[in-house]
């Protein structure tokens, strides 16, 4: 395949640079609603920190023996900023070289990265929801409290929702643009 068009290269640069926003917005959020919390509780996950009602959530979750959520619980938060920086650099490299092979590599890396991220998140959720303190005051037989990977799940009196936040949507948007560029270039080359 030959080099991709100038328009595609500009779009690619734009998409890559847009990901910088992920440093200024949370990438993922978990919302919890209960009869006593009609206004909801939220935990926002950033590339390097957690914000929102984490202390309140911890306070409530100790009844069922869940671990205290803290930044230390997520080693990922120490290196995600560099991974994302590398990803931006990769995207810019595609734009600068205009190599369609590199573009394909970028897409495959994105897909793989996405799968690994979700698997990692699932692993954390599984551990968090199942590895409970045996002395917890409330024990419900066979009940796990794994938060939903994506979407909604009912956990005792809470409705939990897990979904991307602003930063996450921007990353997804950037990858979608890259994919669209690849499709466009692929069809043009036929």
């Amino acid at each position, binding site marked *: 395949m030959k080099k991709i068009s100038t328009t595609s290269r500009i779009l690619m640069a734009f998409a890559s640079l847009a990901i910088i926003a992920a440093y200024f917005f949370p990438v993922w959020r978990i919302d919890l609603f209960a009869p006593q919390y009609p206004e909801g509780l939220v935990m926002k996950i950033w590339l390097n920190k957690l914000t929102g009602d984490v202390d309140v959530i911890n*306070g409530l979750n100790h009844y069922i023996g869940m671990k205290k959520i803290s930044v230390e619980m997520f080693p990922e938060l120490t290196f995600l900023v560099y991974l994302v920086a590398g990803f931006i650099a990769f995207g810019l490299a595609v734009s600068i070289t205009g190599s369609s092979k590199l573009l394909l590599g970028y897409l495959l890396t994105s897909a793989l990265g996405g799968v690994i991220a979700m698997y990692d998140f699932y692993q954390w959720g599984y551990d968090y929801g199942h590895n409970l303190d045996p002395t917890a005051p409330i024990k419900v037989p066979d009940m796990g409290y794994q938060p939903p990977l994506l979407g909604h799940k009912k956990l005792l009196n809470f409705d939990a929702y897990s979904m991307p936040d602003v930063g996450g949507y921007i990353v997804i948007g950037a990858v979608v643009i890259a994919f669209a560029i690849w499709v466009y270039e692929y069809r043009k080359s036929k």
Partner: protein
Amino acid sequence: MSTKLNNYLTILTAMGLLAVIANGCKPKNVSSATSGDGAEKAYVAPGKYDEFYNFVSGGFSGQMSVYGLPSGRLFRVIPVFSVDPEKGYGYSEESKPMLNTSHGFVPWDDLHHIALSETDGIHDGRWAFANGNNTPRIARVDLKTFRTAEIIEIPNSAGNHSSPFITENSEYVIAGTRFSVPMGSNTDVPISTYKQNFKGTVSFISVDKNNGAMSIAFQVLLPGVNFDLARAGKGKSHGWMFFSCYNSERANTLLEVNSSQKDKDFIMAVNWKKAEEYLAQGKGQKQTVAYAHNVYNEKTHSATSTIERTVTVLDPKDCPDMVYLMPCPKSPHGCDTDPTGEYIVGSGKLAAVIPVFSFTKFQKAIADKTFDGDYEGLPVLKYDAVLHGEVKKPGLGPLHTEFDANGNAYTSFFVSSEVVKWRISDLQVLDRVPTYYSVGHLCVPGGPTKKPWGKYMIAYNKITKDRYLPTGPELTQSAQLFDISGDKMKLILDFPTIGEPHYAEAIPADLISKNSTKIYKIEENENPYAAKGEKEAKVERKGNEVHVYMTSIRSHFVPDNIEGVKLGDVVYFHVTNLEQDWDVPHGFAVKGANNAELLIMPGETQTLAWKPDRTGVFPMYCTDFCSALHQEMQGYIRVSPASANVPLTFSTNKAPESAK
């Protein structure tokens, strides 16, 4: 027929006729006085918010209650001048100084009037002021927290009834003494020397426009009459304060007769802008007095009480053009200024008319010196020269007047138990409705301001008799809500109130609700005894004081096992609520405490002092149902004999460790 029989027949016929008439005159069934759609108009569906907050004085309960309108639902009783064991107010070490006075700790008062803060003559939703009648005080309630933030005692005063009525930019709240009293260094005088020795004062208490802090700016020394109620001028009359005065006879006994002799008493007008000038010129006399000034600090979660020693007094003799008197019929009670500031309505309790004074005429009379002599050196203006007109035959026993935004006034009549709506411009009576029974104050939302919000009028009654299920000799006090959006006033709801309601104010809900505090931030807690995390919890001995730095969070205390306390110790439980979540207070109580509970808001620290009276193990627990495991939120404290060697230890869920 004999004349005698004829006479009998006449009498019988007359009696029969009387019986028919009397029957026909029987009051209508009370329910017929309520309009058909009343329930609908006062109905606020479950989960829906009310349109207005109604801040209602609690009278002899000493507290302020908060209702929603139009539902009449009670939201909160704010402790102000009386202790409140439910909230630990006046019982916790932190709140005790709020009730300090120059007489020491006074745990009760009689709260009569509410004044909501204003900017440009319009409610701004920042503070509610209230007067303490018995031991003269003014309190400021913070409407972010719905808590009493400050209380200032008023010296040279007795019976702070003419208070706290506020000026249009909250420059001042005022305090007119109901009782005149002997003042100065020798107050031990025969009561019969009233006319020589007894004086009255009105105090102007400045309000800091940024933080609400109160300070007595000056007092005006006045003849020994009784000051009853007051209102600030507004708009064109801004800069003046109007006070109703009775007992110009200056009687000191059997006032119901002896102070009702003169045909006219007075509405007193004080030009406080002029007073400020005199004050700046140094015309004020500094007097040595003693009064308490109590301030609650939201960061330390504690009150401090300071005894202040001086007050500046202005004597009208040295300050011409500062005080004028307007004659007002028969012991005026209410003294209310309309939204334009042009009209001042005096309500002579025993008068057959309602006089309405004109501020424009008042100014002209001063300029033209249309005087009718003087009273104790104060110039008295001619009644006719200042009068806009009189409302004729309005009812019996006029007390208080509120206003709507359409030029109408609403006056309560205690004796004839009714509210009369009349038009200010032509003084015509437009409508009247009965109240059940013996109405005192009225409240129209924004009624005392330049911008009445209108829509409703609430009557606060003194007698309820047959209106509610009986509860023994003492019956509930009550409020009655009227819809005033149409031409006719319509009764739409009765609701009971706490204590005895006097004046009340109502304000659109969103002026307050959006600023409401949800939690205190734990990192901003500056209480010296705070434990801002379970790691900071500890127990320390200082002589015979044992200080427990305790934390509470759903659903445990740290520490919850304490040993080593000895008989003769005083234990201070400093409990910090570690929650940072709205509506999760924790309570604290310990068996046998000659005290109350603590109720600790998220992020707050409060202290309960406990002097054990016997040895043993005492339970302590959380009193506010905080969580599913609230009933498990408990602990023990062991008290040993004074001679015992039990070491001071404390723990939660671990082997006891030695305390420092």
